[in-house]
C-alpha cells in the first residue's frame, strides 16, 4: 500500500489492481458480517482456507471475506464466481466438497442451494432469489465486491472516483447544489434535506468546522448502519471527505455505538489505511485540501443518537441533549458549525457526485428520492437487510421480499421507525416507503427498522415495550420525558394487568400530546408515537383489555391462562418435567393439567411440548 500523491497515482493503482484481479479466475465470497458470524461463518472461512491449501488451489482461487449480504436468516452465506452460485447455511464440513467439486470442477452442490419456500425449487444464483430480485440494492450490492479490510479492493472497483471528480472540477457551491437537487434526505430518522443542512453550515461564519458520521444506530431491531460501516467503511469515509470539502471542514468523527465492535474495528482500520495511502491527511491527492477522521466509540446510550447528545458525548460529557434554538450547523461540536449525518446518508453521497443528482432523483417519489435500506425482521419468512427504492409499497416489502407470514399466522401490523415510529395495520400496507406519507399516517420511515407482527403480538404490549425502552434510555433531564413516559407506562401497565379504565385512555392521549410538544429533544418528542399510533389503529385491542379484561393475542400475562388441550396431549410428561414451578400434574400417557394458581406463564412448557397441546388464551 503506497502513498497516492496525485489523482494520476490513484488511476494507475486502480488499473494495476484490476489487472491483478484478473489473475485468479475463481473467487469464493464468504460473508463475515456480524449476522453470519453469529452462525459461525468464521469456522467456515477457516475450513475453506485450509481446504484451499490442502488441495493446492490457494494461488488460483481468491477468497474474499466481505461484509453483510443482507439475507442473514440463511447464513453463513457464500457466493462463488464464475457463475454467481449462491450457497446458504454452509457449515465447515461442506468445505471439502465446495473446494473439490464446485471450485475445481464447477459442479453444483444441490443441498447447499437456496430452496424457494413457496415452489420448493432449488435456486442457483443470487439474482434469481425472490428475496433479492424485488430489491434495488444500490448500496448493499457493493458489499460482495470488497473485503472491508482492504482499501485496494475499494479502489479497484471504482472507489474514490467521486472525490477525484470533486477535487478536479467541483466547487463547494456546486457540490452543495448537486446534493440539493438530488433530493437526498437524512437516512437516520429525521429525513432533513441534506443539501439544505450543508448549505446552512457552509454559510455559517467560522474557520473551524466539523463533519460527523452518526453510527450510533440505537433503534432496537435496526442494523443497517452496522452493515454498511462493517462492509464498506471506505464508502462512508469518501462521502464524509466530500462533505468536508463542501462545507470547509478539516476534521471529521465517526461515532460508533459501543455494541458494534466489528464496525469500530473496520472503521478504524479503514481510516488507518486511508491515511497511509494519502486519502486522508494533508494535501489529499495533490490538492490543497486536508481532512482527517477519528473514530470514537459510544458508551451505550440510545439518547446519544440525538445530534446534540452525540456532540456532548464526543466532548467527553454525558449524553444530555441541548436546546436547539440555534441549530447545530451554526453552533455544534465545540460550539463550531457542524454537519452531522447518518451512515447511510454519507454512503449515498459518492454516487450522487459521480453519476449526477438526476440519476439519484430518478428513483423514488416526489418528496423522497433514492433508495432506503430497511432492516426487515419479525414474523415473516425472510428476514434480513433489504434495500428498496423509495415509494415501494410496504406490501411489496413484507410479502414479495419478506415472503409473508411464518407459521401460517395472519400478519397484523408492521412497526416502522423504531421507538420513535409507529405501527401500521395491514390495511395500510399499500402505503409507500416515503418520509412524508408515513409521517402523515402516524408512523415514520425513521432509520429503516421494519418489524412485522402477526396475531401473536399484542399491540398494547408493543406500546408497553417501547415505552419501557424509552424510559430506560431517557437521559432524565426534562420533566415531560422523564415523568411523562413513566406515567404513560404506568397507565399502559394498568391496562395490561386488567386495571385499566376508559378515562385512562383519554388521559393517555392528553399526556402523550404534552410529552410530544414540550420535551426538550427528539427522544421525548417522539416517545409517544408508539402509544398514539397503536391507539389510532388498534383501539379495539385497548378496549378489550379494559372492558373484557382479556388479551386477544395471548401475551399479557395477567390476562391469559395456560392450559393443556386434553385431545392433543399424549401424556409424554415433558412439560411436567420441565416446569420449574411444579404447576403441571398428570400420569404417564394421561392428559396432563396445568394448575392456574401455580402457573407463572414463563413459557417453558410451551417451548418443550412437541404435540402443540399447550394453549395460551
Amino acid at each position, binding site marked *: 500500500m503506497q502513498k497516492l500523491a496525485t489523482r494520476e497515482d490513484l488511476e494507475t493503482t486502480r488499473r494495476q489492481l484490476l489487472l491483478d484481479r484478473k489473475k485468479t479466475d475463481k473467487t469464493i465470497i464468504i460473508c463475515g458480517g456480524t449476522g453470519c458470524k453469529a452462525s459461525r461463518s468464521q469456522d467456515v472461512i477457516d475450513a475453506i482456507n485450509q481446504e484451499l491449501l490442502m488441495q493446492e488451489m490457494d494461488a488460483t482461487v481468491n477468497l474474499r471475506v466481505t461484509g453483510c449480504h443482507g439475507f442473514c436468516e440463511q447464513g453463513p452465506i457464500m457466493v462463488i464466481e464464475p457463475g454467481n452460485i449462491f450457497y446458504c447455511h454452509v457449515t465447515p464440513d461442506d468445505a471439502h466438497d465446495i473446494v473439490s467439486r464446485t471450485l475445481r470442477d464447477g459442479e453444483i452442490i444441490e443441498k447447499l442451494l437456496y430452496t424457494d419456500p413457496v415452489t420448493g425449487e432449488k435456486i442457483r444464483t443470487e439474482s434469481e432469489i425472490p428475496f433479492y430480485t424485488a430489491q434495488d440494492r444500490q448500496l448493499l450490492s457493493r458489499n460482495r465486491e470488497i473485503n472491508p479490510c482492504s482499501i485496494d479492493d475499494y479502489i479497484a472497483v471504482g472507489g474514490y472516483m467521486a472525490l477525484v471528480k470533486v477535487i478536479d472540477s467541483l466547487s463547494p457551491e456546486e457540490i452543495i447544489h448537486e446534493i440539493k437537487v438530488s433530493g437526498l434526505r437524512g437516512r437516520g430518522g429525521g429525513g432533513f434535506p441534506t443539501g439544505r443542512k450543508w448549505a446552512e453550515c457552509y454559510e455559517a461564519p467560522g474557520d473551524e468546522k466539523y463533519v460527523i458520521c452518526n453510527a450510533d444506530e440505537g433503534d432496537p431491531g435496526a442494523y443497517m448502519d452496522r452493515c454498511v460501516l462493517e462492509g464498506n467503511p471506505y464508502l462512508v469515509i469518501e462521502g464524509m471527505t466530500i462533505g468536508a470539502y463542501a462545507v470547509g471542514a478539516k476534521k471529521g468523527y465517526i461515532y460508533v455505538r459501543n455494541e458494534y465492535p466489528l464496525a469500530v474495528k473496520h472503521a478504524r482500520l479503514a481510516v488507518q489505511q486511508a491515511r497511509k495511502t494519502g486519502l486522508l491527511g494533508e494535501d489529499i491527492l495533490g490538492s490543497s485540501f486536508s481532512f482527517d477522521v477519528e473514530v470514537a466509540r459510544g458508551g451505550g446510550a440510545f439518547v446519544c443518537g440525538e445530534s446534540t447528545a452525540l456532540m456532548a458525548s464526543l466532548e467527553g460529557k*454525558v449524553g444530555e441533549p441541548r*436546546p436547539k*434554538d440555534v441549530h447545530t450547523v451554526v453552533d455544534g461540536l465545540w460550539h463550531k458549525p457542524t454537519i452531522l449525518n447518518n451512515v447511510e446518508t454519507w454512503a449515498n453521497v459518492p454516487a450522487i457526485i459521480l453519476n449526477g443528482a438526476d440519476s439519484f432523483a430518478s428513483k423514488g417519489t416526489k418528496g423522497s428520492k433514492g433508495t432506503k435500506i430497511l432492516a426487515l425482521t419479525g414474523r415473516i419468512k425472510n428476514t434480513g437487510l433489504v434495500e428498496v427504492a423509495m415509494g415501494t409499497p410496504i406490501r411489496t416489502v413484507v410479502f414479495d421480499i419478506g415472503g409473508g407470514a411464518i407459521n401460517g399466522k395472519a400478519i397484523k401490523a408492521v412497526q416502522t421507525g423504531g421507538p420513535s415510529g409507529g405501527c401500521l395495520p395491514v390495511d395500510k400496507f399499500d402505503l409507500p416507503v416515503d418520509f412524508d406519507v408515513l409521517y402523515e399516517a402516524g408512523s415514520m420511515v425513521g432509520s429503516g427498522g421494519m418489524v412485522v407482527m402477526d396475531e401473536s403480538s399484542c399491540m398494547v404490549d408493543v406500546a408497553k415495550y417501547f415505552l419501557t425502552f424509552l*424510559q*430506560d434510555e*431517557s437521559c*432524565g*433531564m426534562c420533566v415531560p420525558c422523564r415523568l411523562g413516559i413513566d*406515567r404513560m407506562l404506568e397507565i399502559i401497565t394498568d391496562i395490561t394487568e386488567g386495571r385499566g379504565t376508559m378515562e385512562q385512555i383519554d388521559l393517555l392521549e392528553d399526556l402523550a400530546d*404534552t410529552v410530544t410538544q414540550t420535551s426538550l429533544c427528539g427522544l421525548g418528542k417522539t416517545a409517544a408515537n408508539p402509544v398514539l399510533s397503536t391507539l389510532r389503529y388498534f383501539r379495539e385491542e385497548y378496549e378489550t383489555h379494559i372492558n373484557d379484561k382479556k388479551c386477544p393475542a395471548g401475551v399479557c400475562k395477567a390476562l391469559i391462562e395456560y392450559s393443556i388441550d386434553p385431545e392433543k396431549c399424549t401424556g409424554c410428561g415433558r412439560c411436567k418435567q420441565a416446569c420449574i414451578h411444579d404447576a403441571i400434574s398428570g400420569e404417564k400417557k394421561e392428559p396432563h393439567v396445568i394448575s392456574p394458581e401455580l402457573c407463572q406463564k414463563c413459557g417453558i412448557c410451551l417451548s418443550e411440548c412437541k404435540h402443540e397441546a399447550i394453549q395460551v388464551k
Partner: protein
Amino acid sequence: MLHYVTVNIDGAIIKAPKGSSVLEVAIEYGICIPHLCHVPGLSDIGACRLCIVERVTNGRSQVTTSCTLKVQEGMVIRTNTDRIKRLRHNIAELLVAEAPNSRAIQDIAVRCGVKKVRYPFRNSNCVLCGRCVRACAEIWHANALGFVGRGKNRHVERPLNMREEFCKQCDYCIQLCPMTIPPCDGPMKPGEEYLCGKCESQLMITEEVPDSCAWCRLGEGFNCGRYAGLKAVR
C-alpha cells in the same frame, strides 16, 4: 456597553439587553411566567419545562422554553395562549403528583391551573430541578453534588458518597431546594396526599391583570426573582 434588542412579549414592546433570556426579560417587566429550575444568577438548562412559551415566526408558532431562549431583534412571544396554558397545566400536574410534599410545587401547580390530579400521588423527595447541582458548581465551584445515573435512576448524589472532601458548607443547596419548603399544614402522610390549592385566592388577581405582577405570595413558594426583589423594596 450594553446592546439592546426590541422584542414583543404578549403584545408588550420591550427593550431587552442582548444576551438575556426571554424569561429574565419577562419577569423583569412584570410578566410572570411560572418556572422552577431557573434561578437568577445560575445557568439555565430548561429542565422543568414550566416556562414554555410560544415563539411566533412567519405565522408558525413553536413551543420552547423561555429560560434557554435568548432574545433577538423582532422576536414575537406569547406566554399565555390556551395551548401553553394546557401544556403548562399538564407539566405542573406531573410535578405535583410526583412530589406533593412541597409548598413550592403545590403553589406552582395551582398557579398553573391544576384543580385535580389525575395520577396516583407519589412521594419523591426530589424533582431533579438541578438547582442544588448548579449552585454547587457555579457559586463556589465546589462540585460536591451532581446528577448521577440516567432516566428513572437519575438522582442527585455526592461524588462516591463523600461529603467532607468537597463540600464548602455554604448551604446554598438547602436554601434553593424547593423540597425544603414544606406545605403550610406540614408534611402529608403517605397515602393521604392531596392538592392543597390554598393560595388559589391569589390567582384571581393575577388573572385579571395578566400583564403585571400581583406580588402573589405564590412567588414565596418557588423563590420567584421578582418576589424576592419586591420584598426587598417593601
